[in-house]
């Protein structure tokens, strides 16, 4: 073993000696002069944010836990994104008056000056395709599609007058998660990890789980780190096969050998640190060590098989499959172990009515059935562990769906469906210092548009950061010469739903 180490050290020594050769000297001078000149051009671009008084990035240990601006009400967040956008009109936003208009032509006043993704010409109105009841003490309207969730409706706060300005999935998802419909900004989870670090030094601070057979349309940018250092991006884990790709040791390499090789690399790195004192080297060393620890701890926490049977039954898991139920159980395990932000995407809610799986009266109902029990189980499971109190759960899509039946290209569709709609949708939040049994915001009689208590993606983001202990206007990162924040110039903390 020590002989192998000798070889690494020898190689390091040779590399060092190269630094003193004439060729390397000239090459460095050449590049060095160029970069010095460039540096002076770019002096306004303080891209590591070191001048910014609020900068919290520590290159030695970027995931070192930090204290937020004020005491947090939530220690972690589970964000459940129903990708494709579920219909609020079949779940929470009960509009009996819309039923009376069922089958009639949509009035011109609702179409003039509006743009829809697929609706063309004059569509027909479509009444709620579900039965509604008021639930619990709070009297929240929840449809029969969610029989389990209806029993915990008193635990959540509904935001019924959400609005967005993006009617395509990709941009709308980006807006919900990164605060802009365009690419390049960090996601909420990345901001949270940048602000708080990782509580568990053996696990990533921000984990992403997907189900439904497809990635969200916006791609991985929706959990990206944008201009923040890349350590803050979401670590995508899988509930099928290896939880994290490429984390297993290759065949023939045992744990001790891996340890020995990492020790050797780190020792070489430490030697060069002693010589050059470059803090980036320390950062590299700590990353190696963390990766080594994660090799053990990640597969361990990602293994749901050791959970008792009654928990599996509660969530309705399907061991070995990539499904929402498994992911929700995983989410609870991760939060329990101190992961800050778990983002869950479940694809398949885009109920246009183009085929059976996307029909509002078939595929949509089936999606509800696969979501209802595990989501309810997640809330109850967190509650019985005393974790709901400090875990903020957010549920929602990227926009809403029209009160009109979709008529793609002006033709009648094979199945009932609704088009993308920006003017009204419902999301809910629970736990983490959010009021119980609250409903905020209202839409008009037919659920076409929000009329009071309007909220936006920025407001939701501001509220999430607020629950984590941050003033969304002060959590900034210096980039391209100015401080950036998640909510840019928007956002209002929705105090109405905060306990």
């Amino acid at each position, binding site marked *: 073993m020590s002989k192998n180490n000798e070889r690494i050290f020898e190689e390091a020594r040779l590399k060092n000696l190269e630094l003193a050769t004439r060729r390397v000297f000239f090459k460095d001078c050449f590049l060095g002069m160029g970069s010095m000149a460039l540096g002076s051009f770019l002096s306004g671009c303080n891209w590591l944010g070191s001048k910014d008084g609020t900068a919290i990035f520590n290159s030695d240990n970027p995931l070192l836990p930090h204290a937020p601006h004020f005491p947090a009400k939530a220690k972690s967040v589970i964000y459940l994104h129903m990708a494709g956008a579920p219909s609020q009109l079949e779940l929470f936003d009960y509009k009996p008056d819309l039923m009376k208009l069922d089958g009639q032509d949509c009035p011109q006043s609702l179409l003039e000056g509006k743009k829809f993704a697929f609706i063309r010409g004059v569509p027909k109105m479509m009444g709620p395709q579900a039965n509604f009841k008021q639930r619990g003490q709070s009297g929240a309207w929840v449809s029969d599609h969610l029989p389990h969730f209806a029993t915990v409706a008193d635990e959540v706060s509904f935001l019924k007058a959400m609005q967005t300005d993006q009617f395509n999935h990709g941009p709308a998802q980006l807006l919900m998660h990164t605060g802009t419909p365009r690419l390049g900004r960090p996601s909420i989870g990345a901001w949270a990890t940048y602000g708080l670090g990782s509580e568990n030094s053996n696990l990533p601070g921000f984990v992403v789980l997907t189900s439904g057979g497809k990635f969200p349309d916006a791609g991985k940018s929706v959990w990206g780190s944008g201009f923040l250092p890349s350590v803050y991006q979401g670590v995508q884990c899988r509930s099928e096969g290896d939880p994290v790709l490429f984390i297993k040791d290759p065949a023939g390499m045992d744990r001790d050998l891996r340890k020995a090789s990492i020790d050797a690399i780190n020792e070489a790195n430490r030697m060069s640190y002693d010589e050059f004192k470059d803090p980036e080297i320390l950062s590299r060393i700590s990353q190696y060590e963390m990766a080594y620890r994660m090799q053990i701890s990640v597969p361990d926490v990602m293994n749901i098989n050791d959970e008792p049977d009654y928990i599996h039954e509660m969530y309705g898991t399907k061991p070995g499959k990539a499904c929402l139920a498994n992911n929700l159980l995983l989410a609870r395990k991760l939060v329990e172990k101190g992961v800050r932000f778990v983002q869950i995407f479940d694809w398949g809610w885009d109920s246009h009515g183009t085929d059976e799986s996307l029909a509002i009266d078939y595929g949509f109902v089936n999606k509800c059935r696969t979501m209802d029990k595990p989501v309810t189980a997640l809330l109850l499971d967190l509650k019985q562990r005393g974790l709901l109190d400090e875990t903020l759960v957010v549920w929602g899509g990227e926009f809403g769906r029209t009160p009109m039946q979709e008529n793609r290209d002006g033709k009648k569709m094979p199945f009932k469906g609704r088009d993308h709609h920006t003017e009204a949708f419902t999301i809910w939040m629970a736990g983490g210092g959010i009021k119980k049994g609250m409903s905020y915001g209202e839409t008009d009689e037919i659920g076409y548009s929000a009329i009071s208590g309007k909220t936006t993606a920025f407001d939701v983001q501001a509220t999430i950061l607020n629950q984590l202990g941050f003033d969304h206007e002060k959590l900034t990162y210096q980039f391209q010469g100015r401080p950036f924040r998640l909510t840019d110039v928007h956002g209002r903390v929705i105090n109405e739903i905060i*306990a």
Partner: protein
Amino acid sequence: MSNVFALIGNFHPVLVHLPIGFLFLALLFHWMSGKEKYAGILPAVRIAFLLGMISAVLSCVTGWSLSTGGEYDEDTLDYHKWMGISVSVFSLIGYQLSNKPNTGLKKVISVLTFLLIIITGHLGGTLTHGEGFLTKAFNSKSDSSRSARKNIINVQEAQVFNDIIQPILQDKCGGCHSATKQKGGLRLDGKDWILKGGKDGKVFESGNPLGSEIYKRSTLDPLEEKHMPPKGKPQLTEQEMTLINWWISSNAGFVKKVKEVVQEPKVMPALLAMQSAVVSVKKPAIPEGNIAKAPEAALDSLRKAGVIVLPVAANSNWLNVNFVSIPKISDKVVALLAPISKQIVWLKLGYADLSKDSWKLIGQCNNLTRLSIEHTNLTDESIANLSGLNNLLYLNLVGTRISVKGIALLKPLSKLDELYLGQTMVKTNDFTTLQKQFPKTVIDSGNYHLENIPADTQLLKAPVIKK
């Protein structure tokens, strides 16, 4: 004529700043002119005193006109008036003395003038902005604006007016319509005052919200002059408006309890929110005030052992301590908490197997507000150590061997909001007894189950249509 008189009253808030400025300048110049270096500014003192005197008299006149509007607290107004008049008198004396040589009398006069201006100014501020306006910012930390609202455990048992409506009115209307100030001759701090109404007549008509000014005004366009609360003041929230509307329209009056009044679905969430808001309003709870910084060496040794020790917020010395990163928690590591026992407010120590001494040490961290010791070896005996943690709001005992006997020892924890007892030795039928012992605590029994229903596994299929 009376209109013109009322009009000049409106100039009082502008004019009052002139004598303050002129007279402070006069006094400053007067004191400076004592120094040889500044002796040259002596003539300016006389001019400044003259201007101060003229503007002070004008302020008095306009102030008198404003006071006849009668919207102010009489006592304060009286003091303010006499103090204002004495400022004018003193400025006259100052003017007269300003070309006389310096004497002890002059010194006394100048100091008195200075004090009088400050007192008059403060009283004026009190009249406009309400009692304690100056220190409001400091007070708000310890008693939030919600403090007027009573803790409502069960909203159905609460009184509609006293517990729900009156606190809203006090919060949002009290600034101008209460004992200290009565704009429009209206007071809203009690049944009799509300029934009496204001200058323009009745404001409350039971059963008719839109006929009751008290509600109608809040529904007007915010830009309209008659809209209440006025622009720039904290507005009624949607929820508060729903509640006020319900109070008037349902004829709830001033003595009924919530359960005695018809509740439409629309008010139910608003009512429930009154209740649950109270349970968790103290939530991110950290103790009031601050504490000495924890010794850095102790923090370092804990961090080295893998414990996460963080201030609960930037600029706070209260600590949040979490053992989640440590796979096997030993007594040796827990012992490191001793030097910071007073600073810890949140402690997470789940899945630990601890000795008697460790439990004793945790029992000494008496500023703790949140304690998670789920799945630890806590027993009915060792729990006695925790009975002194009387600041606890949240206690997580899930998965421990605790039974009803042990929980009884927690009786002294009077602030306890949430107690988690899932998977413990507490039996299902013990929970009713426990709830009686801890009436203010939300006790979670855990053990939740979701019934299996056919829809969980069945999928809907569209009927196949033959072509």
